[in-house]
C-alpha cells in the first residue's frame, strides 16, 4: 500500500487514540457510579470497537494498547495499566473471533468484550494480589456485560452515523 492510501487510516487511528484517551480521562474524573472500585462504563472502548469494525483487529489492538499506556502513564497508574493490558488482550482476542464468525450483532460482541476484559483484568490481579479477590468475579461479570452492552449500542449508533465518512480498510 502506498503512503498516500495509508494516510486516511493513519489519521483515523490518530483521532481514535485521542478520543479514547479523552474518554479514559473523563471516566477517571467521574466518581465510581456504583461505589464499587473497578466497575466502569468502559466508554474508552467505543473507539476501539469502532476501529475493530472499520479497520480490523490490528488497528483496534493499536488504539486499545496506545490508549492504555497513555492513560496508565498520565493518570491511571502503573498497576491499573498492567491489569488493563491483560484485560484488553483477552477481550480483543474474543471480540476478533466473534466478529470473524459474523453472525453476531456489535452489541453482543461488545458484551463479550466487556466480560472478557474484566475476567482478564481479574486474572492479572489474581496473579499479583492473590486468589481471594476472585470473590469479585460475579460482580465484574455483570458489570462487564452491562458496560459492554452500553458501549455496543453507542458504537452501533456512531458507526451508523459515520458510515459515509469512515472508509473501511
Amino acid at each position, binding site marked *: 500500500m502506498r503512503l498516500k492510501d495509508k494516510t486516511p487510516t493513519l489519521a483515523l487511528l490518530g483521532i481514535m487514540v485521542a478520543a479514547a484517551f479523552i474518554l479514559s480521562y473523563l471516566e477517571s474524573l467521574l466518581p465510581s457510579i456504583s461505589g464499587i472500585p*473497578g466497575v466502569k462504563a468502559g466508554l474508552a472502548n467505543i473507539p476501539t470497537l469502532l476501529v475493530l469494525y472499520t479497520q480490523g483487529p490490528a488497528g483496534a489492538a493499536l488504539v486499545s494498547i496506545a490508549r492504555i499506556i497513555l492513560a496508565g502513564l498520565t493518570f491511571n497508574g502503573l498497576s*491499573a495499566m498492567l491489569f488493563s493490558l491483560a484485560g484488553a488482550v483477552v477481550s480483543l482476542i474474543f471480540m476478533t473471533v466473534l466478529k470473524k464468525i459474523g*453472525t453476531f*450483532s456489535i*452489541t*453482543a460482541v461488545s458484551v463479550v468484550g466487556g466480560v472478557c476484559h474484566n475476567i482478564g483484568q481479574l486474572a492479572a490481579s489474581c496473579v499479583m494480589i492473590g486468589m*481471594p479477590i476472585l470473590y469479585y468475579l*460475579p460482580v465484574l*461479570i455483570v458489570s462487564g456485560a452491562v458496560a459492554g452492552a452500553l458501549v455496543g449500542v453507542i458504537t452501533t449508533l456512531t458507526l451508523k452515523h459515520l*458510515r459515509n465518512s469512515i472508509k473501511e480498510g
Partner: protein
Amino acid sequence: MKNPKFDFFRKPDLIIYALVLVVLVCSFFLWGRVQGETGGFAVVSVNGTERTTLPLGTDTEVVVEGFAGLNCTVCVADGAAYVTEADCPDKLCAKHSPISRTGESIVCLPARITVTIRGAETSEIDGVAR
C-alpha cells in the same frame, strides 16, 4: 435502506448471552469455593495440646472438655467461631465476640481452653491501587 450491520440485536446473539449467563453461574460456584478456602480453621486446644480443628466454612457446635472438668461449647456459624456456653466462673470466653481472622483467639483460663483462628484472611482490603 436497512443494513443488518447496525441492528442492536440479532437472533444468534442469544447464544452469546446464554454463554455469559453460564459463565456467571460458574463464577458463583467458584466464589463459594474460594470463600470456603479462605475461611480458615478454628483450632481448639486444651492445656496447650490441640484437640480439634473446625473449618470455619461449616456450621458446627462442639462441647470441649477442659481442665478440671470445666466444659466449653464452641460454636461455628457464619464463618466465625465463638463460645456459647462455659462452666467456668467468670464466663469471659462466652462474652467474647465471634472471631474469624487469622491470629484472633478466645481464651478460657479456668478451663485452659483456647480457640485460635488459622489460615484465614488476615484483614479486609483497606486500599485499592489505582
